[in-house]
């Protein structure tokens, strides 16, 4: 139910709408709840609405924390 996916804003449209790219699929969603969203930002899309923005720097930091936490180093992915 609370499923939501990160998608990139491709274009801002009139009436608080935006075109987003979701792994190659383009879709129009509402950005009325994320007035700060700009083209190139990643938004979290839930039931046709962007409900939040992704902070790219924090995402990198979180990935670094995973690597730090892991006891056994991760195999380089093929």
């Amino acid at each position, binding site marked *: *139910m609370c499923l939501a996916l990160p998608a990139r804003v491709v274009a801002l449209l009139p009436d608080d709408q935006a075109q987003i790219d979701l792994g190659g699929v383009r879709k129009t969603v509402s950005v009325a709840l994320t007035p700060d969203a700009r083209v190139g930002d990643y938004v979290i899309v839930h039931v*046709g609405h962007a409900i939040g923005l992704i902070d790219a720097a924090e995402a990198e930091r979180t990935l670094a924390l995973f690597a730090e*936490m*892991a006891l*056994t180093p991760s195999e380089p992915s093929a």
Partner: protein
Amino acid sequence: MKYVDEFRDGALARGIADRIAAELQPGRRYSFMEFCGGHTHAIARYGIAELLPPEVRMIHGPGCPVCVLPIGRIDQAIHLALERGAILATYGDTMRVPASNSLSLMKAKARGADIRMVYSATDALALARANPQREVVFLAIGFETTTPPTALVIRQAAKEDLANFSVLSCHVLTPSAITHILESAEVRQYGTVPIDGFIGPAHVSIVIGSAPYQHFAEEYRKPVVIAGFEPLDVVQAIGMLVRQVNAGRAEVENEFIRAVTPEGNVAAQAVVSEVFELRERFEWRGLGEVPYSALKIRPAYARFDAERRFALDYRPVPDHKQCECGAILRGVKRPTDCKLFGTVCTPDNPMGSCMVSSEGACAAHYSYGRFRDIPVVSVPA
């Protein structure tokens, strides 16, 4: 996909699980409740339960809006569609929730009710515009993630002065449900549900922020770690909870910092409080009546409130006697403790709500875990 794939690295997840195992204190058991159905689903789907050392137990919480929707609410929706001639628009998740008289929205549709599955609340509004001669009711369910979109369409309907649109609000609140669990007899007195900490919701927290959980850390001395829905997020959060327990800390920590801020989405909160106000009480399946745990439409928008528009009464209806959804939603029982699990009750023909949504504890275990219950025995050739 960016921000998805890199959070699903299996080798890294194993490495974090190894670290968790290495940091456990000897002789200690750890029980954490994941509140959200999204986390329940991730734990089952990605095999996180198997990755964890046996001393760490995950208890499934009531954070699946489909699962906690009581029969009485579905009955109201069916009544509107079957007897009042309304077009009922709803998210697909609610279609198979069992209701009274062996009905569900799906079965009511087969009997001729005009029920339409929608992806978004705005689709329900479009239905109202396209059918001005019909009443269109949106059955609005969900936690704090789906509430802002519902608030937006009510505000839009007022702006357009739509005369045939209304909302049956079943929106519920996460913090009051957590309080209810912490106050329950099983947790407080009997100790049958030992909870050492919570994994806090992902997308709900994007909207409400991390601040509302402070109360649980301070008043109840329970650590809370907000986590994203990807498997690495969940494993990392469990590790953070183990560290808090080991150190005797009870704090709110935020693993999902790439999307959750302390104050949350202020624009979303503003539109919700403009349109909705607290309900004094609301029945949850499994938890019973929980005070101030749901939202109703404010008097200023009363004409869009289906309960007032159709003068609906709420009648509570008990669940099927053999169904253990109630105890499962409170963390007291596991899906396999239920006699109906996997026999009478399956995702194709759910008897209880936990088997309906893929985020329900029973459906998640049925889809991803039920074969693990059967020991593998090698037969000599």
